[in-house]
Every structure is written in structure tokens, then in C-alpha cells.
């Protein structure tokens, strides 16, 4: 955990009082809605179909139990008793009243939580691997750098009115769980030939109506130079990014229009002239931030405790363990993923009661720490293996032990037309129906790893382009239709999925997905070949034939 000091606390309190003043001026009519809109967006407040939506940042996906309890409290006191975890390590509340927002923010600030820059055309919440600091084989804890970047990007005097939103993600593992290739800037922590720690910097990734996979702009930038290099990228973007067309304003379009070589040259020139610009991080500064991350005092525990051996006789426990429990870098400990994808439930939602209960379990079994991942699930990052059977029982009672992590029912979905004013079609009911169709865990296990991503419009909040199966809601003559893509992925081999054929109406989506999955089962050359690999090997055609033969 990162511990806020007096300065961090002062800043977020000052932000709360500034926002309180802005709300007051809006309510009194001193600010027009047009003027207020930008101000509220800078603080995570959207106007949705039915009410204001409030998006709160969970920087790099790390929460303390105390913070999670406070989120539960906000859900209960200011909303309708639940919250929705998003694909960018945020939580959203959907029924907030504007006049009460400053109080909700003040309560969150007391535990070091804020909503700064969770929307608007600025640098958004810096995201990272939800297993940061506990995943085996990591170069180092990417949250140190995430926090350095979080501070640097917060209320930045030059880059708070960019052409469009700007998202940064950081990973330090070979397997990319932070989806860095679909971010405006993706940072991959690694060591160069001299053993020095630094970053591969990628730029220009993003989804939406013109999706791009990020390109490498520099294979190695030393850690001490990362802030100045990022600043150089931002300065080029702030000046030359398009402002004439909202759909062409992201940095990916600038990179695409200039070409990565030319863009890289512009950035390099700027970077040279900046000459550090006071942003070079010496060791003591990095150590200062590192020192404020605390790590649990792990015990020396056996690799295979008796409790685990005994519990292995219970097939339900074993099924959950094999699905939801991942190796930890410390012997005797595990990382446990809590599925927020129960059969029939909206993906990523948690009730206030569940949040409180998870906070209690985190105190009991995970040194008071919780993680939030971009797949809209939670994790307890430091669970002693001997406690897994007890934890499982507790999670099962809470409806948080659905053994479907990374399986077909672990669906990523945006809020869609049920909440969002931008949406063309519903997302949540499609996800709910699919979880019912594939509710049988044996079938889901037999299918294996398969990511379904659903977006209710081209803005792609559900990351449909990079789902193994992507479902995109569109509107045709006033009706909901869905385009389906296959073969996308969001990890280190990120790529966009390919369209399988004409859009299908709402009522047929689940049937089509079942057909695609059946086609895969018939086409895969062995059970271990993942869906996405079969698509890679055979292309779209055999799937298309299967789906459209009878339609």
C-alpha cells in the first residue's frame, strides 16, 4: 500500500473544497451548464440517462480495507447500495445527487480517495497490473512508477485541457495484465543489457471508432528520465493534436497521421530541448516514493499446507482453486481473484454489503489489501494458502466464488443503454443472458479461456475490439443490433478482432455466440488450443460459415 502523507492529503482536501465551490456556483446559476460541464468532468461527474454518474479513481488498482469500506458507505449513503467497477480501475456510482457530491467527495478524501481526472480531456487515472508487487517474475513493483506518474499528472498546469482524454498504463510482467497496448501511453518496465531499469514506451493505442494498437516509440527510457519523456510526448500532443474534430483528437490519430517515425522525431526534439526540465528523478526521489509503499510481513509457510491437502478432496473447492487462485511470489501465499461475474448478474457490480464483507475478509486473510483489475474483478493479493479453504467458504456465501475467472462467462461489459447516454444498445442484459447460457461450469471449463467483451456503442468502453469475442451494439432503424468480431486480444500480443459478418438483432446474439463456441469446439485441434489460437490458425471464415449458414 502507498501511504498518503500530509501533502497528498492537503491536496485532495483542497480539491474537494474547490469542487464544493464549483458546485455551489453551478447551483446558484453563476456558472452555465457549458462552463460547469468541463469542471465536473475534471472531477469524474457525468450526466447520464437517469442521473449524475460519479467515477472514483482507484489508482493502479490498489485499495485498503478501510478505503473499500468507505466506498461501501458512499454506495449506501449517496447511491442505491451498489457500485460498478470499470475496465480502468475506477468505481462508478450511478445515482448520485449533485448537491450531495461534495460531501461524498469529502468522505472519500478522509481515506485518501479522490475522483480527480477520472473523466475530461486530461490525464486520466494511471492504471497498472492488479497483481503488481505480488506476481512472480516481475521486474519490480510497477506501482512505484504509477504513483510517481499519478502525482505528476494530477492537476498538471500545462496538460489539463488536452485535445482529448489521455490514458497511461504500466506493466512490469511478461504477461501484460494492464492492456498497455490499447492505451495512449503504454509503459513496459524492463531491464536493459546493462541491468538498468527503464521503460519500453509505447504510444498511440486506443479503441473507439478508430482503433489502434500502440506502437513502440522508444525501446528504452531510463527510469530517471520517464517523467521528462512523458512530458515531451504530452507537449507535442497538446500543441499538435487535432482539436477540430472530437473523433480525431486522440493522440493515436496524431501518431497515425504523422507516422510513428515523424512523431518520435518531434518528441525527441522536444525532449532534447527540455533537457530534464527539472523532471529528472534521482535515486533519492524514487526511493522516497518507494519507501511509502508498505509490504506485508509474510510468514515462512510451507508450499503445500495440510489444510490445502485436505480441502483438495472437495471437488467444488478444487474447481474454484484451480480457476481463481494464482501463484504468489512468496512461498505459501496465493493471489485470489474474486469474480464479480455471477450467473445472471451485471458484470463488475458489487453491493455495499459485499464490499464491506470483502474488506473484512481482506483484513482477516490478505493484510487488509484489495486489488481491482481491468477485467472488472477484484483480488485479494496476499492470502496464505492454508487459509484458502476458509476464504473460499466465506466468498461462496457472498456470491463471490463463481469459478469462472478467464472463462466464457467472465464477461467485460460497459453499462450500455441501461445507464449511458452515449449508448446505442444494451450491454448488461446481453452479458446476463450469456452467463445463463454458459452457466454449466463443466462446459465452461471444457471451452477454456475465452474473453467476451461487450460495448453498447462505438466508444468501446467494454473493449469489444480486443475481446476474443467482441460484441458491439449499434442502432439500425431504431432497433438494437450487434456486430460480432472474433480473434481480438488485449495482452502482450494485442490485436483487433475481425468482423464475422452482418450485425444480428438483440434476440439472436446469445444464439450466435453459442454457435461460435460450438464451431470452435469442433474446429480446435486439441483441447488445449485456446479459442483465440484456433481463430488465428483458421481465420474468420469457418466460423462465419457456421454462424450464417442457417441465418
Amino acid at each position: 500500500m502507498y501511504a498518503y502523507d500530509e501533502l497528498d492529503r492537503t491536496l485532495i482536501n483542497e480539491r474537494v473544497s474547490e469542487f464544493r465551490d464549483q458546485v455551489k456556483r453551478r447551483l446558484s446559476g453563476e456558472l452555465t451548464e457549458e462552463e460547469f460541464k468541463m469542471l465536473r468532468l475534471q472531477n469524474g461527474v457525468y450526466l447520464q440517462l437517469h442521473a449524475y454518474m460519479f467515477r472514483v479513481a482507484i489508482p493502479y488498482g490498489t485499495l485498503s480495507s478501510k478505503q473499500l469500506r468507505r466506498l461501501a458507505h458512499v454506495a449506501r449513503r449517496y447511491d442505491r447500495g451498489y457500485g460498478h467497477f470499470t475496465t480502468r480501475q475506477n468505481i462508478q456510482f450511478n445515482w448520485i445527487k449533485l448537491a450531495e457530491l461534495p460531501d461524498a467527495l469529502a468522505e472519500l478524501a478522509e481515506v485518501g480517495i479522490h475522483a480527480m481526472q477520472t473523466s475530461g480531456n486530461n490525464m486520466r487515472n494511471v492504471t497498472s497490473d492488479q497483481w503488481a508487487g505480488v506476481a512472480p517474475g516481475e521486474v519490480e513493483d510497477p506501482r512505484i512508477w504509477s504513483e510517481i506518474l499519478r502525482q505528476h499528472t494530477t492537476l498538471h498546469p500545462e496538460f489539463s485541457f488536452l485535445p482529448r482524454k489521455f490514458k497511461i498504463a504500466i506493466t512490469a510482467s511478461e504477461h501484460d495484465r494492464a492492456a498497455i497496448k490499447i492505451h495512449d501511453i503504454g509503459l513496459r518496465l524492463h531491464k536493459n543489457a546493462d541491468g538498468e531499469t527503464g521503460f519500453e514506451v509505447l504510444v498511440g493505442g486506443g479503441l473507439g471508432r478508430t482503433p489502434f494498437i500502440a506502437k513502440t516509440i522508444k525501446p528504452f527510457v531510463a527510469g530517471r528520465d520517464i517523467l521528462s519523456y512523458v512530458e515531451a510526448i504530452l507537449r507535442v500532443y497538446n500543441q499538435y493534436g487535432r482539436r477540430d474534430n472530437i473523433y480525431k483528437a486522440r493522440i493515436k490519430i496524431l501518431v497515425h497521421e504523422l507516422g510513428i517515425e515523424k512523431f518520435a522525431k518531434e518528441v525527441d526534439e522536444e525532449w532534447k530541448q527540455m533537457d530534464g526540465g527539472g523532471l529528472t528523478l534521482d535515486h533519492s526521489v524514487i526511493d522516497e516514493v518507494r519507501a511509502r509503499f508498505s509490504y506485508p510481513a509474510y510468514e515462512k509457510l510451507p508450499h503445500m499446507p495440510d489444510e490445502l491437502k485436505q480441502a483438495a478432496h472437495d471437488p467444488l473447492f478444487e474447481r474454484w482453486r484451480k480457476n481463481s487462485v494464482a501463484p504468489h511470489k512468496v512461498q505459501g501465499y496465493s493471489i485470489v481473484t474474486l469474480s464479480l461475474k455471477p450467473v445472471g448478474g451485471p458484470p463488475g457490480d458489487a453491493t455495499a454489503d459485499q464490499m464491506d464483507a470483502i474488506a473484512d475478509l481482506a483484513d482477516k486473510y490478505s493484510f487488509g489489501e484489495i486489488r481491482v483489475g481491468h477485467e472488472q474483478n477484484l483480488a485479494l493479493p496476499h492470502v496464505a494458502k492454508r487459509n484458502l479453504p476458509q476464504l473460499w467458504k466465506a466468498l461462496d456465501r457472498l456470491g463471490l466464488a463463481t469459478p469462472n475467472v478467464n472463462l466464457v462467462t467472465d464477461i467485460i461489459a460497459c453499462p450500455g443503454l441501461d445507464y449511458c447516454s452515449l449508448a446505442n444498445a444494451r450491454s448488461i442484459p446481453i452479458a446476463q443472458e450469456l452467463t445463463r447460457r454458459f452457466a454449466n461450469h463443466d462446459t465452461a471449463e471444457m471451452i477454456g479461456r475465452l474473453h467476451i467483451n461487450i460495448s453498447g456503442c462505438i466508444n468501446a468502453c467494454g473493449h469489444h475490439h480486443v475481446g476474443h469475442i467482441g460484441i458491439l451494439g449499434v442502432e439500425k432503424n431504431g432497433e438494437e443490433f450487434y456486430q460480432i468480431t472474433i480473434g481480438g486480444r488485449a495482452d502482450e500480443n494485442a490485436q483487433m478482432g475481425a468482423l464475422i459478418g452482418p450485425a444480428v438483432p438483440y434476440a439472436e446474439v446469445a444464439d450466435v455466440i453459442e454457435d461460435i463456441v460450438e464451431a470452435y469446439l469442433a474446429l480446435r485441434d486439441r483441447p488445449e488450443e485456446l479459442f483465440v489460437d484456433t481463430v488465428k490458425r483458421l481465420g474468420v471464415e469457418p466460423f462465419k460459415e457456421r454462424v450464417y449458414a442457417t441465418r
Partner: protein
Amino acid sequence: MRLVKNGRITTDLFVHVAEGAELPGDGAILVPAAQFLADPEAVLKHGKVGVIWPNNRDLDDLVPYLDRLAAVALVFPSFRDGRAYSQARLLRERHGYDGELRATGQVLRDQFVFMSRAGFDAFEVKKDADADAFAETVKRYSVFYQPTGDGRVTALNRRMQLRHSESAGQ
């Protein structure tokens, strides 16, 4: 519109010269970039001269004249358009410009902190109530994460100082 300079509401001594208009006989003037660049030497003879520089024009053409200008006015066509923040920092921090740096266009209360951090010291404030609230608004924040040319000490530096003074006391 009110002018706030060095933190106080003040009378604007500069006359804005409209695009293509004749230069007035005397007094300080703010001239559009195109008019200035058409014959910089002639304009500079006028005396106290400031230039209104658009936010989509490279600063390179202006840089040779900076030490002879009394003011540079940068433009915010909309408060959502943040290009002039970069221009301001470049003028102050890279080109060492130390004359008046004025924010013009849609200049509203909630930009004051960002603008002053970027190096602006004069503000053509759109709403009177915002101008009246200037002094109080720029004091909203006491903690800053980024180093800019405004000289405010960053949080990181304050922490390092604190750490040094603690270890010195041990």
C-alpha cells in the same frame, strides 16, 4: 472584462489594435501577430509594444523579438483549448521571457491556478465576479506536484527537504 495584473484588478494601459487597423498615435499597444510580423521594426518603433500570438502558431517567429516586447498576449479561444499553456511555459522557461504574459479569450476563474503556474501574470478576465475573486482563487492550492517556472516548491522537493532536516537532526 477586467484586467488582473500581478494579482490586482488594474487599468489596462494597452490599446488592443484590431486586425488591419491603423496604429494609434501614442500609448502602449497590443498588436495582432500578423500585423507585427509584417514589419516588426516599424511596429517596435512605436514604443511600448505587445503582440497577440495565436495558439496555433509556432513561437519561433516571435522569439527573436522577445527582449524588445512589453507584453505577449496568448489566446484561449475556448477555455477547453489548452494550447496556450504550453506556449506560456515555453516562453517563460525555455526562452527566458520575463515581460508581461497575458491570458486573453475565455479566461475564467477555474483556470487561474493553472495559468499562473504556467507563467501568466496578467489576465483579461471575462466575468467581473471572477476578477473580484482572483486573489482568493489563486490561493486555493498549497501543494503542487509538478515543477514549473513559477518557482513554487513541489511536493517531492518538500519531502526531500523534510527528510534531510530530519536526518540532520538525528
